């Protein structure tokens, strides 16, 4: 398992690799300000064509539609090569934007990272 401090100044806190699975830890506010950087990072990860990628959102306090758009794009990229993208640890405050956009049934959402990896 590789643990690396990916971008201490952005929402991407860590990218971990575990038995072929990529786990992306996000933290803070996922908004328009960081969306471009996050998008670039997600595209890099999806270019590796991981069979499974898990985005851990347990430390995300806020997400707007810009942040949501980056996740949607990552999901679409993963589907193109037959991979899976799962979200884990979404707080109630952040979950509502998924519900409003009716994406709570589109994304695979798990309460914990462990459940997402199972």
């Amino acid at each position, binding site marked *: 398992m590789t643990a690396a401090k990916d971008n201490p100044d952005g929402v991407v806190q860590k990218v971990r690799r575990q038995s072929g699975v990529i786990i992306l830890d996000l933290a803070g506010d996922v908004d*328009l*300000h960081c969306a471009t950087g996050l998008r670039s990072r997600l595209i890099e990860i999806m270019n590796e064509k991981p069979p499974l990628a898990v985005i851990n959102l347990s430390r995300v306090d806020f997400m707007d539609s810009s942040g949501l758009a980056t996740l949607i794009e990552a999901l*679409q990229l993963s589907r193109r090569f037959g991979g899976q993208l799962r979200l884990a640890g979404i707080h109630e405050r952040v979950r509502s*934007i998924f519900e409003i956009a009716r994406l709570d049934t589109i994304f695979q959402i798990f309460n914990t990272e462990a459940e997402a990896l199972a």
Partner: protein
Amino acid sequence: MKKENLLEHKIEIHIAAQPEYLCVARSAVRKAAQLAGLPERHVDHVTLALEEALTNSIRHGYGGPCSETIIIKIRKLLPCDKKAGGLEIIVRDFGRQVDPACIKSRNLDNIKPGGLGVHIIHSLMDETEYSCPADGGMQVRMVKYLVASNLEPQQHAI
């Protein structure tokens, strides 16, 4: 300007149309919503709605980040007649004008990035009104009531 529930504006914030300042506006409206007595869930709602309105101003009003100004006005509404108290938020930019009738939510069945801001605002706020000020730009007025208003609801409760 509606006569009911009027109070002079209590909070006015000017920010440059830069994404890095969105968190400043969010913090302000979050606190204002708490002071207005909104339940925490609705505090989250108005914060997100403001964020989406600001993002729209930056992206669509100004065509991207720039040094131009976005004005945010926040005021508490007192109960009046048949309307409950609440919080009014006005976002004003000085960029491109569009016909408010053309500002609509997109089809959510089409899963794609982008284009969710208008829908999110309408879903979260009790009242949403777009207008074209005479001196240019766009203005969106958003209201969240402390209890369900007696008006025809624009959106379902979350």
